[in-house]
């Protein structure tokens, strides 16, 4: 267990034509010892490069990396006491599961002579060390329910089993930091849910520092203590999952997190305490001058179909309805918006709606998010009465 500190990390790649590409831009980040931190972002945002820099697989162009309070710049991955799980699992296909799990220990505990082919086993001390290795391998295999697979080769395993072997290989050495680069992306949806739970349980048991890279917001939201959302080589926002969802710092974060995606529509500040959105006037106060254009973010679950009309109620025309079982997604058009909005409501409430039907949509005002023209979140003031009403 060790903390990680990244200080103004930059990474510049040179394109084949000679022009430089900045992948990471002065990125600073602290990971507490024992924390589960997720780097979340779209592909190409630099999250994989960052984790490879932490592992030592790639040198940073500038800045410094400390693990456990010690600067590890220029140190080989082997000397950083980190373990990594790769998206492709990177198991050695010619070795049995047992040999795969033993390899990190063999490389560390046996001397070069003891590792030598044929003669190694006759070197003094070989058997004693080998016994400790076998014991540790069996222990970790037992913990991840791999004991019955030890004799198999990776080619004979299912995706989920390979994933577990990769985890076990990372665990066997008891490293102080676990790095995981999209470890679940090659699994099917059901297995992914199951492995999510297993990795969370593993973290709770080991209490080791985990740095987890993913583009999947569900993984980030369900597993992490904190999530760092990355765009274009920078961290846009970092915080606990609930905070990222409830109080996104920017419009990009708001749009990246949450399914279905948040509805972003243009609104105009009408007075110090009202904003006009798609024909409705919402009693939301801002500090922006009257006439300013703002982006109003409405989470799909903060919108509800209602019976009666009113000044604070949007008028929508149903485009289509997706029934998800307990919930339904209703896609609908509102005045002046080309793109359909979406709301999420219970199946019972959506039952009366049909395509092309005109209906009323109420918004929970305390969940409304406002962003200025640069996409930064701005504070809003919601009247008490409205927020009380919106508690459902």
């Amino acid at each position, binding site marked *: 267990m060790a903390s990680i500190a990244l200080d103004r990390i930059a990474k510049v790649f040179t394109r084949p034509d000679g022009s430089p590409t900045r992948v990471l831009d002065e990125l600073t980040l602290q990971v507490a010892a024992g924390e589960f931190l997720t780097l979340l972002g779209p592909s190409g945002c630099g999250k994989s490069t960052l984790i490879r820099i932490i592992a030592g697989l790639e040198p940073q162009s500038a800045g410094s990396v400390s693990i456990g309070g010690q600067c590890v710049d220029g140190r*080989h991955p082997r000397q950083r006491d980190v373990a990594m799980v790769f998206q492709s699992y*990177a198991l050695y*296909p*010619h070795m049995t599961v047992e040999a795969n799990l033993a*390899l*990190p220990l063999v*490389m*560390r505990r046996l001397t070069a002579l003891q590792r030598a082919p044929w003669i190694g086993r006759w070197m003094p001390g070989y058997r004693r060390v080998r016994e400790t290795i076998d014991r540790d391998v069996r222990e970790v295999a037992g913990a991840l329910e791999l004991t019955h697979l030890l004799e198999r*080769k990776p080619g004979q395993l299912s995706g989920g089993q390979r994933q577990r072997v990769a985890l076990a290989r990372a665990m066997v050495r008891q490293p102080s930091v676990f790095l995981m680069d999209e470890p679940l992306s090659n699994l099917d949806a059901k297995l992914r849910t199951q492995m999510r739970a297993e990795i969370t349980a593993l973290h709770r048991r080991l209490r080791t520092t985990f740095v987890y890279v993913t583009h999947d917001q569900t993984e980030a939201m369900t597993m992490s203590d904190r999530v760092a959302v990355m765009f274009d080589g920078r961290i846009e926002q970092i915080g606990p999952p609930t905070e990222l969802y409830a109080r996104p710092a920017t419009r990009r974060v708001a749009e990246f997190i949450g399914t279905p995606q948040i509805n972003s529509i243009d609104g105009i500040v009408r007075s110090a305490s009202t904003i006009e959105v798609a024909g409705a006037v919402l009693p939301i106060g801002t500090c922006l001058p009257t006439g300013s254009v703002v982006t109003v973010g409405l989470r799909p679950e903060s919108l509800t179909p209602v019976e009666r009309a009113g000044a604070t109620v949007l008028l929508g025309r149903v485009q289509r309805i997706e029934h998800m079982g307990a919930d339904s997604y209703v896609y609908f058009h509102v005045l002046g918006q080309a793109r359909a909005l979406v709301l999420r409501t219970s199946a019972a409430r959506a039952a009366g709606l049909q395509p092309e039907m005109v209906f009323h949509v109420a918004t929970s005002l305390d969940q409304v998010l406002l962003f200025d023209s640069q996409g930064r979140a701005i504070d809003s003031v919601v009247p008490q009465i409205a927020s009380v009403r919106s508690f459902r």
Partner: protein
Amino acid sequence: MTTDAQATSMEHASQSSHGWLLAGPAAFALLALIILPALSVFFVALTDWQFGARTFSYVGLENYHELFADPDFYKSLRNTFVYVLIVVPGTVLTGLAIALLVESDRTLRTFYRAAHFLPFMATLAAMAVAWEALLHPTIGLLNQALSDLGLPTANWLRDPSTVLVTLAVIAIWKNLGFAMVLFMAGLKAIPRDLYDAADVDGAVGATDRLRTVTLPMLGPTMLFVVIVTALRALETFDTVNILTQGGPARASEMLLYTLYVESFGYLQAGRGAAITVVFLIIVVLLTLLQMRVMDRRVHYS
């Protein structure tokens, strides 16, 4: 009912005639160019036919009896095997070493690749002349260099103890580039992640990395290179014919050259055909053996 059945059978007939029509050209070429000549070799081996003669008679296994009673044939067989046993490991090891060296550094990679591949592209008959000049006992560059360094010289192509090794070295020189190019392609196909995993797992030294990742992952390429090099070495003919004519004292006579001399020198077509059959059996056996032995130790991921 009957009309239905008739229609179906007619359809079948037309389908199968279409099939034959489509497969016809290829089947004919296969028959005319490979199967019939091969069968005729098996047949000729059972006769005493002399090349160009109008008559021949059936002699059964007489050609084979003579062949296996002939010490010169055994010598040729032994030479061939020794030669293959030098050429295959020599080509594979140097080819792999050069591929690893070239891949380890980006600079001049294409140049090295082209330079090493050149001998493979060149006609060996022309190259053999260059080798002959190089290996000339008195004015050859090799011996001059050796004597300048105070090292013992040799009459490389005229000495029974060196001739076979010299021919093997020329074959290695020629096949090296081929093996190297294949190994380079194989190296490129190894997933980067495996090397990263080896880094994190602590397999850092060159030998550890070779043993953990590179060599096992090159297994399929290795199998292919070994088989192809062995087959090419087995059918060596041009260097023997141009440089040594099997001499001195049959020290460099190999199977294909013996076959050539018997068939077209002494015009003993029946005997030549028998050697061809033996050669064919060796090639097939070797291929099967290599496939079986190495398939078990090779890991196609």
